[in-house]
């Protein structure tokens, strides 16, 4: 019963989305504010209806209603409550519903927050967001409905894919979708500014928090994907340059470029067309990701749903959106001519320009690597795959360039940087970086990229701290010059930070990236691996660890049973026990590996139990992955930095 109500609510929401677009357009072209108010109320009603629709599906999961096809395919009586409640996005149809619901939510918030402040662009924003919603609801209702019934209803469901029964997978999709969908808001503002001819700075100021929110959600979503791959797939790594991973990474790269270049427009009024180009490209790339994932044109570990019908529709939708957006940009870009040019190559704005160039080139290389196999297959019927060797060659140098710019940027000021500030710090910074390289060399690190990264990591960290110290000194000096006692250093630091939340939030994000880079270098260049057969009692040495297989037994939980090995690992008197498993989830009987991981700040010991080759002998893969924890902690630092930056509203003029 509830599912039918949800279905009807979704259908009504589809009509309301069309109403939102139609009435907004009618209102703005015929100058009738009443129509636009209808559009506004549609936005709120739409959110309520989609909440009901998504709620009915969650309710069906929680009540084990296997007469709903989607529930029967993605849950079972044995599925634990945590995964039952989140199985909504365990498959294609529910994921799309979550997408649409998030878009409706952000749509509602936008109308609520910006209605009175942006009355001129609001009709266009409503029209664009309504159109997007209608597009997604068409896909949901006509091509991938989660509201279908099964008759007769099975007694039990097929259970959620065991690989998805992992905390990393519970959080990965919603964060990623939040990122994708929140990008629609700055996109809609940008388009509205372009259409109304008010492509000044206002749309950028208004959507700064949206952009930050979208960016950090995307970041967290991508990292959760890597985290899941690392803990659940058991191949010892976290990133494989799979087409669908790339699809999430490309909008991240262009969104990062956008995040930086809007600052230039805000301060200096330049890069106007460029910013619009970036936000359109970013949003288009996030739709491209949806297309790649949902249509199955590329072979990928993620190609869940290969359905040409859906593919044709998403392609049509994406083509419409791309041609509309870029068409408007091309037609209207002449409005955006600015006469200001860069004054000096030594300025913050030119550092941002190079940062943007590198990020966009990086996005283009990933796009090429992703589309090349598709092009080859389409044109010549051969299969090729583009993997890590290509990306390592092309991508790492670009990223090193970006790290270099990241280190230089805090030393530069707007318009024209004085070289004296650079000269003061530079010898020390270079000496520090060089010292780091020598120390690494001494530790037998010879890989050129590794050495370069270590130098840059030290350089970036040092310039950021140097900047903080210089600012702090200046503040304390001013305070004492104005008479009165100099403030306590900590109080002054707090003042400095809290009055410049944007600046120091951003710099915290940079430090997070530095921490992550250390993790990439550690795990990328220093991974050690052994692949061998062990019988109980056998030992093996890896790094400083001595691992002994003690026994192999069994384990079971609510909906799985497993072969579980007990492995003792020892170093310098420290002794730990690891329990790698090979799990069978009864229903799907597809065994999954549960790697046993011992994480410390310096390295992860990662043990995977393989097949039994003969009586009492098992295959094991054991990895030493240095500094993996730094990747997750780097992300946490980034999230903290963004949250700090978001606490500040508009920049004080």
């Amino acid at each position, binding site marked *: 019963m509830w599912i039918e109500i949800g279905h009807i609510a979704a259908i009504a929401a589809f009509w309301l989305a069309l109403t939102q677009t139609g009435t907004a357009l009618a209102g703005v072209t015929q100058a009738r504010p009443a129509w636009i108010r209808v559009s506004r109320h549609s936005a709120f009603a739409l959110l309520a209806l989609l909440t009901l629709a998504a709620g009915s599906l969650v309710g069906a999961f929680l009540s084990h209603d296997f007469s709903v096809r989607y529930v029967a395919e993605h849950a079972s009586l044995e599925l634990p409550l945590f995964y039952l409640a989140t199985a909504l996005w365990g498959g294609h149809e529910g994921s799309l519903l979550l997408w649409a619901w998030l878009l409706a939510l952000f749509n509602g918030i936008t109308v609520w927050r910006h209605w009175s402040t942006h009355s001129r662009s609001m009709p266009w924003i409503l029209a664009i967001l309504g159109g997007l919603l209608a597009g997604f609801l068409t896909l949901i209702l006509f091509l991938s409905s989660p509201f279908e019934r099964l008759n007769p209803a099975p007694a039990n469901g097929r259970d959620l894919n065991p690989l998805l029964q992992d905390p990393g997978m519970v959080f990965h999709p919603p964060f990623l979708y939040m990122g994708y969908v929140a990008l629609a808001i700055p996109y809609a503002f940008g388009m509205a500014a372009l259409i109304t001819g008010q492509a000044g700075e206002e749309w950028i100021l208004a959507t700064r928090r949206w952009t930050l929110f979208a960016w950090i959600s995307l970041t967290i979503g991508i990292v959760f994907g890597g985290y899941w791959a690392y803990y659940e797939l058991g191949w010892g790594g976290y990133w494989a340059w799979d087409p669908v991973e790339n699809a999430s990474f490309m909008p991240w790269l262009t969104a990062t470029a956008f995040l930086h270049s809007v600052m230039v427009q805000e301060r200096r009024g330049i890069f106007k*067309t460029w910013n619009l*180009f970036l936000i359109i490209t970013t949003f288009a790339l996030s739709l491209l990701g949806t*297309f790649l994932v949902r*249509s*199955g*044109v*590329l*072979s*990928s570990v993620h*190609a869940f749903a*290969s359905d*040409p019908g859906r*593919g*044709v529709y998403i*392609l049509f939708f*994406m*083509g419409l959106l*791309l*041609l509309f957006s*870029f*068409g408007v*940009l*091309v037609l209207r*870009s*002449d409005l955006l001519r600015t006469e200001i040019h860069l004054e000096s190559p030594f300025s913050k704005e030119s550092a941002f320009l190079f940062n943007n160039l590198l990020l966009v080139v990086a996005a283009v290389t990933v796009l090429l690597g992703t*589309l090349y196999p*598709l*092009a080859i*297959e*389409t044109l010549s*019927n*051969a*299969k090729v795959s583009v993997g890590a060797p290509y990306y390592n060659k092309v991508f790492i140098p670009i990223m090193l360039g970006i790290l270099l710019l990241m280190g230089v940027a805090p030393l530069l000021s707007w318009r024209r940087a004085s070289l004296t500030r650079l000269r003061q710090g530079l010898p020390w910074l270079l000496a520090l970086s060089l010292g780091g390289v020598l120390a690494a060399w001494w530790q037998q690190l010879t890989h050129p990229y590794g050495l370069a990264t270590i130098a840059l990591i030290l350089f970036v960290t040092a310039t950021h701290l140097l900047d903080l110290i210089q600012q702090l000194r200046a503040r304390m000096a001013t305070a004492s010059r104005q008479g009165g006692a100099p403030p306590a250093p900590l109080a002054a630091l707090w003042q400095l930070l809290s009055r410049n939340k944007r600046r120091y939030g951003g710099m915290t994000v940079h430090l997070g990236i530095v921490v992550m880079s250390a993790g990439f270098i550690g795990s990328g260049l220093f991974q050690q691996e052994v692949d061998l057969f062990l019988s109980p009692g056998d030992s093996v040495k890896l790094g400083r660890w001595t691992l002994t297989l003690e026994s192999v037994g069994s384990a079971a939980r609510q909906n799985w049973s497993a072969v579980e090995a007990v492995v003792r690992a020892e170093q310098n008197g420290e002794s730990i026990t690891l329990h790698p498993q090979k799990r069978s989830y009864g229903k*799907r*009987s*597809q065994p999954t590996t549960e790697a046993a991981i011992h994480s410390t700040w310096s390295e992860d010991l990662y043990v995977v139990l393989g097949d039994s080759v003969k009586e009492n002998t098992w295959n094991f893969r054991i990895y030493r992955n240095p500094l993996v924890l730094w990747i997750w902690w780097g992300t946490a630092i980034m999230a903290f930095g963004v949250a700090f930056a978001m606490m500040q509203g508009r920049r004080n003029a």
Partner: protein
Amino acid sequence: MKSAWKAVLLLAIMAILVLFALGLNNDPHAIPSPLINRAAPDIVALDLAGEPIRLADQRGKWVLVNFWGSWCVSCVAEHPYLIELARKTRDRTDFTIMGVDFKDTEQGARQFLARHGDPGYRHAFDPNQKIAIDWGVYGAPESYLLDPNGRIRLKQTGPLYPGWFEQVALPLIQAPLTQTEKGAP
């Protein structure tokens, strides 16, 4: 924006869209086997009853080689069709079926056949996946159709489906052999 840039931008977008439109016809799961139109690696093994079995003995017939295992869920779905196909083609002198039970235990295979029905043809037993690796099998079930000269003509990844023999195999079997397919003298 200069008009040259405008043109480049729009052309690039059109090119990507056209590529996607063409790419929609691709099947991401169809991975062509490099063995197509090559001589199949011979299979010399023991069957499930412990008797020697050899693929080359079937030269002169079309042979369907079906890789399966009792651990494979899709094989259960495929099995009724294999039983039907074996029954339907029992009287053909130009076609036979051979199973390869890989990554399996003898007991598991026997239980599988007892539970889901025995199609009657013989199965090479490949517990260490030696045959499967030679043939480039990466999933189960996978099936190969060999012509009377022992060349692989077709590969089916995933279960065979009702009508497969008539729609896919028969046209090949009935087509006259071309000069190259007759093999070197």
